[in-house]
């Protein structure tokens, strides 16, 4: 029996005591129980993050010694920034020394460009599918839907061949172009735009808008929640993308965070402390973005769920 067992037993005992003291008002005891269960679930969810936080700051010599933090009297010796110092040291490569911040910038740049390009083309495609009538629209939509059934990994070899043939290997174009028109994104935007009244678009036409101006001035502001949610999902997807950069990028100085972090734990290295410090830093940009777009994300995910 360890400390956690004793703690849980104490909580259970408190529930029994509350129930026994107030047999006529069991509601109090059950409210207490409900909060305890929720708190435990929250703790389970938070535990890996806390573990990551602790491990990033622990000296690599005691990384496996303690589950979370070392005893408080050892903090001065065993808690330090050595992992971060190691992380930000220059790494020799074929193109010269590369610093960790370079990978952060690479990831930020790539995720931002991917998000902007995907958002632009997906929303335009979604608008066209939602509001324009053209020949072959149904067939196009059928093929688009069908293409969503093909797993991305299956396409890796043909896309790789294509990228090599058009000479885009080792460039970010190889990561941006294949996903520039996201079918999922187009359908997402189509669903959001299809509910916008046609009269609004016609009013814009009469007021003097060009077709692009209708898209920019009338449609996009009205699907802002969806745009926010889509941007967040796309940014995260690109930020976490491991396979793409691993396959298409060769130069060390062009690599992104997921690939570089993976280099710290592999066949030739096992710098877990540095890896965890890097992971902690890698969480920060998407977390900031999430807090900025939180409102849009929540309303975007629920938009269209009920009649507004």
């Amino acid at each position, binding site marked *: 029996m360890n400390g956690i067992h004793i703690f849980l037993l104490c909580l259970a005992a408190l529930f029994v005591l509350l129930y026994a003291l107030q047999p006529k008002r069991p509601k109090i005891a059950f409210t207490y129980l409900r909060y305890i269960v929720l708190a435990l679930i929250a703790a389970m969810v938070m535990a890996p993050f806390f573990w990551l936080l602790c491990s990033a700051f622990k000296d690599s010599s005691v990384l496996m010694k303690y589950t979370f933090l070392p005893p408080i009297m050892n903090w001065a010796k065993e808690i330090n920034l050595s992992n971060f110092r190691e992380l930000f040291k220059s790494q020799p490569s074929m193109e010269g020394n590369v610093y960790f911040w370079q990978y952060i910038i690479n990831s930020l740049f790539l995720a931002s460009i991917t998000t902007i390009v995907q958002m632009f083309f997906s929303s335009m495609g979604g608008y066209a599918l939602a509001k324009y009538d053209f020949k072959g629209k149904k067939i196009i939509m059928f093929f688009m839907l069908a293409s969503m059934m093909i797993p991305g990994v299956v396409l890796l070899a043909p896309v790789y061949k294509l990228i090599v043939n058009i000479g885009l290997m080792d460039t970010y174009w190889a990561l941006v172009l294949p996903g520039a028109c996201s079918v999922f994104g187009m359908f997402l935007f189509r669903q959001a735009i299809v509910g916008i*009244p046609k009269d609004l678009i016609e*009013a814009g036409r*009469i007021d003097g808008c060009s077709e692009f101006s209708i898209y920019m001035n009338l449609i996009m502001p009205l699907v802002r929640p969806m745009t926010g949610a889509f941007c967040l999902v796309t940014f995260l997807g690109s930020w976490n993308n491991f396979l793409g950069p691993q396959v298409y990028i060769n130069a060390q100085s062009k690599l992104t965070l997921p690939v570089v972090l993976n280099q710290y734990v592999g066949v030739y290295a096992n710098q877990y402390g540095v890896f965890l410090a890097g992971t902690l830093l890698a969480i920060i940009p998407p977390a900031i973005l999430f807090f900025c777009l939180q409102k849009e994300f929540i309303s975007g995910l629920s938009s269209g769920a009920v009649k507004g």
Partner: protein
Amino acid sequence: MAKVFLKDVQKVYDNGFAAVKGASLDIADKEFMVIVGPSGCGKTTTLRMIAGLEEISGGTITIGSRVVNDVPPKDRDIAMVFQNYALYPHMTVFQNLAFSLKLRKYPKAEIKKRVSEVAEMLDISSQLDKKPKALSGGQRQRVALGRAIVRNPAAFLFDEPLSNLDAKLRVTTRAELKALHRRLNTTSIYVTHDQAEAMTLGDRICVMYNGEIQQVAAPMEVYDKPVNRFVAGFLGTPPMNFLKGKISSSDGKNVFILTDGDIVELKNDNGQLKSYMEKEMVLGVRPEHFTVEPFAGQSNNGIKSQVNVVEPLGDRKDVYMSSRSGQKFIANLDPHTAIDVDHQVTMYIDINKAHIFEPGETGKNITISKN
């Protein structure tokens, strides 16, 4: 300010459905033209073709002196008020009003001046900073009107703009619209299915049915002299009554013999009914042209009928009746008329105001066609 001409305008959809079949209409400068008709008659399609929101399949549309068949909506110099207002929900009232001016690159000071003038005219100055969702239906309607007015276009197009308002607000807004037109003096084309709007607003009314224009005339002319049975039945509440029978001659006088045997003496026609003798025809009588007492000099035109329903409406009584052969009709009577359900009464027709139509949905009015 501009005249609007439609010449043989047609709209045939890809599936072969002809929504408008060769409509020709001549709308004068500063005129308020109301296009009225039942759902699916092609009135909105006609308006949308004038606006440029719908391609035309044939004919020509001229606004001012320019044929606009292939001109995009933004270059037609028209403004449109939509049925559901179509205000931009993410913009404030000011931005909604200013949007078209901004797109046309007007100077900021000019935009502000024009928006303020229009807002004052429509009594929405205090709402300029609000978004459309914070406004009531009536206020939204005013903003939609303002958005059209602010551009000072050659013509206004209205697509059932009052149909989303409640009955009371509709009546007040209708009067305001009429006053506004008098003030702005701009050519206006107004589409509605509401005959009261058509009668009250229009300088002229264009009645459409089945994609065809049936009659274009001043409201009272359309009411008093409908060219066919459809127009006669469409305007008026309750609508005109249609009684089946045939034209015949008795003692040298023309008479209309109803299917149940009652005989109505027709007015002197100068021989125009001759070709219709002994043919099945339809007698059209407006509800207000029935009385329980014979009209002066018309003692021989009563119909023996039974009262089915009596609806006292305060200013009048609508009485639903049926003749002996079961032909149903409605009479508008004085509210104090002593009449009740199941009474047997003789209803007299003011034959000077009755019409005779050829049979069929759009049967021709033979009493006016030869005048």
